[in-house]
Every structure is written in C-alpha cells, then in structure tokens.
C-alpha cells in the first residue's frame, strides 16, 4: 500500500456497483462478488462481512491475533469495531424480493447477521475466536477512528489486555444514492483540496489493528499517543463552517498526547473533496498548525471509505511513520488558493515521527488520533 501511496495511484473507477446508475467514480473491491465467508459463519454472509474476512486474512493479521490469544487468553482480548452501513446491502436486496401479496421479506433474509450494526462485531469476534468484551461503534465516518479511543480506555481500565480495532464499510445503494441526493458525489475521481473539487468518491474498504498495552512496547512499535473526540452541534450533514468541532478534536488529541502542534510531522486529513468539508477542515488545521505542517488527504487514492475511513487512514499514518512517507494527493491537480494549509500535491520522503489523522462524520461526529513510534 505504501508504494501505491508514494506513486499516488488511485483505485477509483467509473461506478459499476450492482444496479447503481449514478454518474460517479467509486472504489470497488471486485473480489467480494465471488467470495463467501468461512463455512461455519455462512449465516453472516454479506458483502460487508466478506470484506471484513478478506481484510482479516491479509498480512498475517488473523495469525497475529491467534498468537495474542495464546498470550493473553481469548477472554482478555476485546474487540472495538466500527461500521457505518454494516450489511445494509443485504436488506436492499431483500426489499426487491418482498412477497407480492404480504410484503414480507424473503425467508432467507437474516437481519441479525447482516443488517444490524453489530453483525460485523459478532462476525469478527467469531472469526478470530475472541470471547472478551466488545461492541460496534456506528457514528458514520468517524466510527473506526473512535474505536481506537474505546480500545485504549478499556485497556487502561483493565477490562481487557489487548483489543482488535478497525472495521469495514462496503458499497451499497443507500450511500451511493444518498450522497448523490445531497449533491455530494463527484462526477470524476474525487480531488481533495482542488480548486475544482466537486464531491466525494465512495469507496469500500476495511482495516484492522491489534492494540496492546504500551508498557511493553519494543523500539519501533507504533504508539497510539492521543485521541480527541468532539461534536459539531451544528448540522446533521454539513460540517461547522469554521471547523469548530474539528479544532476541538485535534486540540484534544494533541493535549492527550502531551504534544505541541509543531511536534506533528504530517497530518492525514479527512479531506473528502466536498466544497464544505475541505474548506472547514482547512480553517481548523490552519488555526492550530499554521502554514507549515505538511498535510494531505489520501481519499483521491482510496475514495471515502465512510465508516472504515478512520482505521484505513490510521494505517496510512502508520505507513507514513514506518516508511518515512508523506503521501501526495492523488487526482488533485492544483490546490484551491482559498485553502491555506500546507497541502501536499506530491509525495515526500522524510522522517515522520508523529502523525495526526482526522475523521469526521454525519451528525457532527469528529475524531482525531495522534500516532507515534516507540524509541
């Protein structure tokens, strides 16, 4: 992934998801169409859980969790996961197959294992064989960033010794048509911070991380240093014009990390490429960090992964630290002159010690994380 980010490759293609007829680009994971979830979990089979499983099988992650299970015991590993739309696409499909006489949903429709927001949590818990405490956070596009806060608090409070965080959000008609109805979908691949930006490209994606107590962290281990959470108290789907909630979240994340703005080497922005998000986030970032701190959005590469944006961009931030990479902005041609932060069009190779990453969602739900590295 870090090579793709360095080279500013984009996974966005003209949207051909299912029966959607919307003139936009999307980030689709084609492998999901033919994938089935593990045999013992077939009740949970839906696009979102397929995506979660595909991700759990990458990079030896499931094996690392198994090793942690041996170390801590299955009951001492919690799971704090996020999703915005869960297995909603299963319900969309079921609504096309209603009984013409009674209106009933088809008999094979499984609500708890697909539609319910917790479906992802129970699927991942079972897939990994965990019996510790956990739940699903569903606060729209901040969900999987906030899950880091849940996990850190639970570990600190002694409720668990380790935790799996992350989650998945898969394409569905509701988000494609819904964002389109708000006039927020881009006609081409999205162009964060561009003067001509015209909206988001919806993507699907997943990511997971295993978090353990920091007291035994070895040199080079990635540290979660700070978490900031706030609410806009402004509007359900439009960010605060001055970025007030965003500013509170970033400041809290810095304060809880015990860091000054100048300590942050790179900011991974929420940067959705809507007119309003990028303008208000820029104001908030400029207010705290001024014109120097390099920042960029990676949504031109991935699209907006909605509930999975927090975890995937936390992973981008980890790659930034591990590879000394500040990724440039895929698809952005020229930065909007009205935006004042130090936005990176091109990737930079520089040592990165501290990263701040932003995730903001509908309902004015904001979360910022500060990540660093153990010396």
């Amino acid at each position, binding site marked *: 992934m870090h090579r793709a980010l360095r080279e500013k490759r984009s996974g966005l293609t003209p949207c051909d998801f299912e029966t959607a007829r919307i003139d936009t680009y999307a980030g689709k994971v084609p492998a999901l169409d033919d994938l089935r979830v593990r045999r013992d979990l077939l009740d949970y089979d839906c696009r979102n859980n397929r995506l979660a499983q595909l991700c759990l099988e990458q990079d030896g992650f499931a094996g690392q969790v198994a090793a942690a299970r041996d170390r801590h015991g299955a009951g001492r590993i919690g799971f704090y996961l996020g999703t915005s739309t869960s297995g909603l696409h299963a319900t969309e499909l079921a609504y096309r197959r209603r009984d013409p006489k009674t209106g009933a949903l088809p008999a094979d429709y499984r609500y708890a294992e697909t539609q319910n927001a917790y479906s992802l949590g129970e699927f991942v818990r079972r897939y990994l064989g965990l*019996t510790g*405490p956990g739940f699903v956070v569903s*606060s729209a596009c901040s969900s999987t960033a906030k899950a880091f806060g849940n996990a850190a608090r639970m570990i600190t*409070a002694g409720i668990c010794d380790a935790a799996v965080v992350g989650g998945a959000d898969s394409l569905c008609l509701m988000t494609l048509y819904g*964002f389109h*109805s708000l006039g927020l979908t881009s006609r081409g691949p999205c162009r964060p911070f561009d003067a001509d930006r015209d909206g988001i490209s919806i993507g699907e994606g997943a990511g997971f991380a295993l978090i353990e107590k920091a007291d035994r962290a070895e040199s080079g281990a990635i540290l979660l240093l700070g978490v900031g959470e706030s*609410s806009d108290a402004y*509007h359900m789907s439009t960010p605060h014009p001055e970025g007030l909630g965003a500013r509170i979240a970033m400041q809290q994340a810095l304060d809880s990390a015990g860091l000054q703005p100048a300590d942050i080497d790179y900011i991974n922005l929420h940067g959705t490429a809507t007119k309003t998000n990028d303008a208000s986030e820029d104001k908030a970032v400029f207010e705290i960090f001024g014109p120097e701190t390099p920042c960029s959005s990676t949504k031109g590469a991935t699209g907006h992964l909605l509930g999975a944006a927090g975890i995937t961009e936390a992973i981008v931030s980890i790659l930034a630290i591990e590879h000394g990479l500040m990724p440039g902005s895929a698809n952005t041609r020229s930065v909007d002159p009205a935006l004042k932060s130090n936005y990176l069009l091109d990737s930079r190779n520089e040592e990165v010690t501290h990263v701040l990453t932003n995730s903001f969602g509908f*309902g004015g739900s904001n979360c910022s994380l500060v990540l660093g590295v153990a010396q």
Partner: protein
Amino acid sequence: MRVFVEGVGLLGPGLQGWEAARRVLAGEEPFRPASTLIVASDLLPAAERRRTPVPVKLALAVGQEAFQNAGRDAAATATVFTSSSGEGETLHHMCEALASTEREVSPTRFHNSVHNAAAGYWGIATRSREASTSLCAYDASFTAGLIEAMTQVVSWRKPVALIAYDQPYPEPLHSARPLLASFGAAFVLTPEATGRTSATFELEFLPGEEKPARMSDSALEELRLGVPAARALPLLEALARETQGNVVLDFLTETLRIAVIPC
C-alpha cells in the same frame, strides 16, 4: 469501576417518565402496560423537530429528563448513545425507495438514516460539543453502553450521560426483528458524589456464568426480554427500590455484576 448516578430518565409502555415509573418499579403501584407516549423535545428548533424520526425523539426525551433530574448542563457533558435497532422507520423508507424503479431518495432521510442520528440531533439541541459516541451490540447494546459510559467517567474523571433507546421497526422489518415496544432509559453518571447523587454503580466482570437478573412482575419481564434497551429494567428497579443490591447483566459471552448502593 465505580460511578455515581445523578439523574435518570425513562420512557416505556406504562412507564411515562422516571418520576412516575419509579413508583411502579418500586412495587408501590401496579404495572399497567400502555403505548409509550413520545413527545418531541422542545430543545430542538421547530424545523428540526418536524424532521426528527421517532427513535431520535425517544432518545432526546429520556436524555432531557435525566439531565433535568440531575440538574446538570447537557452542553458540558459527554454522551454515550446505544441502540440495537437504530433508525428503523428511515431505513424502511430508504430501502423501499431503492427497490423502486425511480430510486428517488430524500436527502434528509439519508442523513437521518445513520445510527448516530440521535447523537447528531442531541448535539444540535443541547449545543454540546463534547465527545459523543453511538454503539450497538445487538441484544447486549444496553450493557455495552453502560460499560463504555462507566469507562469514560473513570478515564476522563468527567460526567457522562448514557442514553439507551429502541424503537420497533415497521413491517416488513418488524417480522424479521420484532421488538415489543418503544423503550428508552438515560443515566447521568459522575465521577464523584454530588448533591443530586442517588446511588453508586460498581461494575465487576464475573467469572463463569451467572443468570441475569429478572423482573419479578411477568409483564415487566416480558418487556425486559422484548426490547434490548429494556435490559436496563433491573438496574432501574434497583434504583427505584432504594435498597442495596446486585444486578447481574448479560454481556455477549460474559456476565457482569453491577452493585447498586443507594446514597
């Protein structure tokens, strides 16, 4: 983990507000199930009030009552929302529209469809810019919210409100996930005792399996089992009775015990 209970809000069938319902839960008056009466919160501007879906109204109503009873400023307090069902009516309308050939979806319905719609409207209504989260753990959603809210109080040494709510789905979703009634419960929890503290909650995970607390009244027990948010009932009963006791709650593969100690 120990927290102090400063205010409670409650709405359920025949449980019309905490002040009225506590007499029922204390056994001083009989439980007479009736439709849950949900009044739109006057905290919201009129335009927003009209647009809020029923689950949001329910969450705001119990949250507002808990803060009134606590005598605390909601604008300065973090919140944990928890719901198994989320926004069922909105989900139904969206799925109907998406199954039609026109696929015309309403932008307002779309932003109202998120699981954190109640949290979003709560922020707008109370002007609270504090942290707010929205959780789900299916039938264990109430317990999940309680653990998270208590952990926040202990971690941040700040008051936190827990707002649990579930609203039955319209058909055809109702048949796939039947919920018995509208039910909401809210608790304002603080790290230290205050002038309004009524009890403390002490949380402990239990080794081995213990049976969760049941309601002695069969109709209340049916309600407890019929709505995930109503898993709060044994805790509410312990508060209403103002006697020391232990409440065992199910949580996924585990159980936990809340020691309720009146102050």
